[in-house]
């Protein structure tokens, strides 16, 4: 027997997860189809985890609108779902005369974007806020509401709320083809056909490909842009309070130094174009460069230990703007090329897509009192499970992940299907020892639970 869904969402990146939540709460019967063994396995697996205000977004852009709507909604719902927010603020730093000259222009842009609270800081004021900063800094401005979040618990919470309120999820389920018969879609997957009235393409790095297989054409071409990072151990986090941003160039926001919500410190990302949509390879010379760059900005970083390395792929394309398009003839919406702000904009983008779907004629009754998931709190500045009674002891010592946290994740409706998925949900073995102490214990726990691991 096959069920007809109102909406099938292709892709469970942060964007697909947020859309699933929005449409489910708005009353639609939703299914999410994800080709990878677990969700968040594409662009959303690795980012800088900054919740942007949009101060530097293109003026009047859809991206700006989505980022700002997304920011507001994140603030509103995070308390309900136990999601962290570290409102540390950002400093945009000028190291050269040219960069200094650009600060007023960037502040003007922030004002124009409705980010009114930016404040210029002299060299002395900058160093007073960040004493570990290289003292050759010339000036800066502060963006108080730039914040840090957990890049994984947020999308997990979005999708989990969708699931709790009736949505379905199929992982390991790539959409291979699709037919629209004038009324509804039939999507072909290795796990059977899926029928839905509307289809949303949220396939991230494959957004253009999915348009091609469903519509026969695509108005954009994804050009993956890799970003590599080095992460320093928790002791390094003392070196900065703020997110330290450079003055951006035409092509990139540049290399950021900031804490993570888990209390580490990251330096990255690079911006490297590549063809490969799957593999974000690490390159030793680039990693050395990032290490050196970090130490240039925060000299004391030179003697700190690197804890981990990672790289992500931005779903960039030849256009700067998000590629959000409705296809009224075929009941479809493409949500493509959400390049470098998708984590911030996800909830706003989802609300926008909800309105687009209404425009296509979709009607439903919003759920009156939706169920709310409660996420595990992994933020370093909040009370963690290891501090509470009944935690069943610690599984991963570096990140202080408890057995209770691990079991909660393994028993959740959105339980991980891979080792990587487990790590994203718990942070187990992502700390300084990289599994020296807990690697085998984590693997055995997953073996015991019968996870098919990567």
């Amino acid at each position, binding site marked *: 027997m096959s069920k007809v869904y109102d909406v099938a969402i292709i892709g469970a990146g942060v964007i697909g997860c947020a859309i699933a939540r929005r449409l489910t709460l708005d009353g639609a019967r939703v299914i999410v189809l994800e080709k990878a063994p677990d969700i968040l396995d594409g662009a959303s697996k690795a980012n800088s985890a900054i919740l942007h205000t949009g101060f530097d977004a293109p003026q009047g852009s859809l991206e700006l609108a989505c980022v700002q709507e997304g920011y507001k909604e994140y603030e509103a719902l995070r308390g309900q779902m136990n999601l962290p927010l570290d409102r540390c603020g950002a400093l945009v730093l000028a190291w050269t005369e040219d960069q200094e000259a650009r600060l007023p222009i960037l502040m003007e842009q922030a004002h124009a974007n409705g980010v009114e609270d930016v404040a210029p800081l002299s060299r002395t004021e900058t160093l007073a806020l960040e004493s570990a900063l290289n003292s050759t800094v010339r000036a800066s401005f502060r963006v108080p509401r730039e914040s840090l979040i957990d890049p994984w618990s947020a999308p997990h919470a979005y999708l989990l709320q969708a699931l709790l309120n009736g949505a379905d999820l199929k992982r390991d389920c790539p959409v291979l083809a699709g037919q629209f018969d004038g009324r509804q879609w039939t999507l072909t997957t290795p796990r059977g056909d899926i029928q839905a009235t509307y289809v949303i393409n949220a396939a991230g790095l494959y957004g253009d490909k999915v348009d091609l297989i469903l519509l026969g054409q695509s108005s954009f071409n994804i050009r993956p842009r890799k970003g590599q990072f*080095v*992460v320093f*151990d*928790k*002791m390094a986090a003392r070196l900065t309070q703020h997110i330290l941003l450079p003055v951006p160039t035409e092509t990139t926001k540049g290399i950021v130094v900031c804490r993570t919500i888990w209390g580490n410190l990251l330096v990255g990302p690079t911006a490297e174009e590549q063809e490969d949509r*799957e*593999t*974000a*390879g*690490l*390159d*030793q010379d*680039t*990693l*050395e460069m990032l*290490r050196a760059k970090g130490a240039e900005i925060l000299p004391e970083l030179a*003697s700190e*230990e*690197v*804890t*981990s*390395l*990672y790289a992500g792929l931005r779903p960039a394309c030849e256009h700067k703007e998000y590629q959000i398009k409705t296809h009224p003839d075929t009941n479809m919406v493409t949500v493509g090329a959400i390049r470098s702000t998708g984590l911030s904009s996800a909830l706003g983008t989802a609300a926008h897509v909800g309105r687009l779907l209404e425009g296509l004629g979709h009607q439903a009754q919003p759920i009156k009192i939706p169920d709310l998931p409660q996420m595990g709190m992994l933020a370093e500045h909040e009370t963690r499970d*290891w*501090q*509470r*009674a*009944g*935690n*069943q*002891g*610690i599984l991963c*010592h*570096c990140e*202080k992940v408890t057995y209770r946290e691990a079991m909660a994740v393994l028993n959740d409706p959105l339980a991980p299907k891979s*080792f990587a998925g487990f790590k994203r949900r718990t942070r187990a073995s992502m700390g*300084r*020892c*990289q*599994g*020296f*102490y807990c*690697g*085998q*214990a984590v*693997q*055995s726990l997953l*073996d015991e639970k019968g996870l098919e*691991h*990567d």
Partner: protein
Amino acid sequence: MTDTQLNFDVIVVGAGPAGLSAAIELKRLGTGSVLVVEREKQAGGIPRHCLHSPYGMREWNRLMFGPAYARRLTQDALDAGVDIRCETTVTALKPNGVIDISSDAGQQTLTGRAVLLAMGARETSRSARLVGGTKPKGVMNTATLQNFAAFCDHMPFKRPVVVGTELVSFSALMTCRSHGVRPVAMLEKNGRITARAPFALAPKAMGVPLHLETQIAQIHGKRQVEAVTIIDPSGSHTLQCDGVIFTGGFRPENALLRSSGFEIDSGSLGPKIDQYGRLSDTGYYCAGNILRGIETAGWCWNEGRKVAQCIAAGLQGDLPPRTPVNVSAQASASEHAIKFTLPQAISPSDPKAPVAFDKLQLRLSDAYTGDVVIGTSTHRVSSKPERRILLPLPQSPVSQKALP
């Protein structure tokens, strides 16, 4: 003891060879209550999962495998009246022997009149080595490999590459060979192996090619490791394999010390101690691999015992005050040859007081032949890097108290 007891004469952090031997010695010397806090499920430290010898020679003149050795030390401690609390992690060290712990009961605070820190050391991870490529499964340190061998019914790979040629690297080889795993190569970036020369024969005896002057540049593979790119003087090559074991590069497990505000020696990455094993807060002592990365279990065991004697004396008020003078060490012919000395500082001496570190441990980061000036005396040294070199302890400063 009940779990509600919060005050102890001595609290030991870490139930490895150093911590357990110290606890046993403290009880032998008549110390009232001694608690060992251990974060793993079982006491014993690293030897728990070393399914090989040599362990136990220095301690009991017996050749033992790691697990038996760990069990014996643990049993001896229990028999001596030591309390051991496993699955309990020390999360903060505060002034005057006050420590925070976390366990299933949540957070608690304990107090010791003295606290011995014996948290051991770990190997350097792939990430900290900045090795490029992808992040598939099958990349790990020796200890993790050994945990698989000891506590798991399957091994994480069949044909790994072993990176490094320290003593522990040969443990990795042995563990592989005794568990049906056949390493495809052993890589060493220098022109000779790091362990003593005879070990160079071991890989061949085990059928594993040893590649000198060879570095690992990249790891390939999507789910499991599929290959590595290596670079040797003739260029770069691809080596098919299904795992990578990064061995050695030991560093003290010092995060707790650092987050608690103790000063760290930039050479040893351990805390700075005086000849009694004391840290800057005199309630705290240190012994074992937390001091310097790696030594043998027997060495750490002995160090634990010796520091325990100082702790016992300290509890009686028999240790001179900690007014140390830093040890200055200079290699005349090479600025960077010296990695560290242990102890880093010398407090006044007292004929009544036992001394835990009666020799100066010197370690080199590069091979060096020449003079080393320690304080006012000069010593001739000729050694490879990372070897234990023992020199006479510099003279103690005159105790303030001893002056009329």
